[in-house]
């Protein structure tokens, strides 16, 4: 299967029902906040970010992608004690980038999903750390090994999660 689309190939654009659009990100937020209580290692994952990537890539619409990213990011910010906008800005950039990439690349197979997730996880962290340090003056701890490990773990989970979420796709 080719990894890029030619002008003759039809790009598959998907949509989702309203319950899935609303409940899936909320469920991701809930799991992100609740599961680390019982399983501390779960805090390595960033499920809301994975939701942003999935919806952005599947819809292939940059405006929808960035709005989805902004909404999920701001909700994620709301659960922290930090100012609103840190996750919002990072997820907006990721949503826009993922949906723009989805137009050009085939991101339906496991390998490309794995790589795409690693790339956008890294982009998310760079934007988040830049804004946090530059604007909010947060003294964040950047540990490269930890970031790489988190990116790989998130990419593995993304492959499984996206496969699960494919069941809710609806063709336009």
């Amino acid at each position: 299967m080719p990894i890029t689309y030619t002008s003759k190939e039809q790009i598959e654009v998907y949509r989702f029902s309203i319950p899935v659009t609303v409940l899936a990100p909320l469920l991701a937020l809930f799991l992100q906040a609740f599961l680390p209580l019982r399983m501390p290692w779960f805090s390595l994952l960033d499920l809301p970010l994975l939701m942003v990537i999935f919806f952005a890539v599947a819809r292939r619409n940059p405006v929808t992608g960035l709005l989805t990213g902004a909404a999920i990011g701001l909700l994620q910010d709301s659960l922290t004690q930090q100012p609103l906008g840190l996750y919002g800005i990072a997820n907006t950039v990721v949503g826009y980038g993922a949906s723009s990439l989805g137009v050009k690349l085939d991101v339906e197979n496991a390998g490309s999903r794995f790589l795409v997730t690693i790339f956008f996880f890294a982009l998310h962290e760079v934007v988040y750390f830049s804004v946090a340090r530059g604007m909010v003056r947060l003294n964040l701890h950047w540990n490269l090994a930890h970031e790489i490990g988190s990116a790989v773990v998130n990419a593995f989970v993304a492959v499984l999660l996206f496969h699960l979420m494919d069941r809710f796709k609806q063709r336009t």
Partner: protein
Amino acid sequence: MENLINRYRNVTILVAILFAQVLGLAIQVKRTNDDESTRLIRIWAVGAVTPLEKAIVWFESGTSNLWHGYIYLRGVRQENRDLKDQLEQLRLHQARLEEDAQQARRLQSLLGFKEQFVAQTMAAQVIGLSGSQQSRAFYIDKGSDDGIAKDMAVMTAEGVVGKVLRVYPSTSQVLMINDQSSGVGALLETSRLQGVLRGTPSGQVVLDKIMNDEPVQTGEKVLTSGGDQIFPKGLLVGTVSKVAQGKEFFLDVTIKPAADLSKLEEVLVITKEENRTPETAENTPVRAVDILEKRLPFVPDKPVVTVPGAASGTGAGTLKSNGAGNVSKTNVAKPEGVLQTEGVSARPMKAAPVNKPASSTPTAAPATPSSTPAQTDTAPAGEPPQ
């Protein structure tokens, strides 16, 4: 122009959304104490997530209680016997400690110390975290409806956990002591050195502002100092786990929190504190004369007696009948015992105000300790008679 806008429509929207968020972020950073502008979205987010968390925690604890309280009771009898033995030993230990505590309270009372006492606590269950590795906060299942307010101290039986940061109707957000925006006034138990407890970006807890030349030992306990007006004095925070020379003039003192901050299930919120002088139990032996005094009939009224030497400023003040047969002395601070002033013997004071300014026209300057056993404390020595 229209083509240009259409061509760059996506980028324009991206820039607009990012600009709006950056602007909002800048406003929030500028107004450090402004929670109101973002309160609505926070309430929505918390309202969307926490009900499910509360339901799961409630179901989980209910199931656990059912299992451990009614079904799985293996070994309970033996455990009960062991606990009874332990209780007996602890009673003996408590009796010894009570003696020490009474002595400490007496001394504090003498020195007029005011202490913050934990008057009321409320148990709460931890229902969720903030969901971010950069934010060390959690949510509890009690909110303003239950009497929780901002800046209340939160602890476990092991030690201090954090403080209430935001309050919602049925939940509250608690900032942990290992968050980098947290600060707790703390002191070292043995050396009594005071510092500020802070979280680091990696989630450790450090004690700041301890000078390089101060002796700090690993294993020393760290307690709250009460200086932050949030945590009552004397609560255990943790122990010193590492001491290193830091930058400039201060030590890098790493603290291991007493409470396991990564496995919190139930916490106590200190909902009421009291500032009061420690009460002491009256342990002084009762003298026969005191008992007799209570039983004997009152002595009839006597006129005011001026103590010899009072006019010269070296006397003990004025002895005065209080109308009940007792003789009182103004400006006298000695609360107990029989008053003896230069050969004048009086009954124990009952109605006379102790440590009270002389409202009944004192005629003499207060006595000095060398001149009389009854010491005055309100007017300075040498004050001219009024």
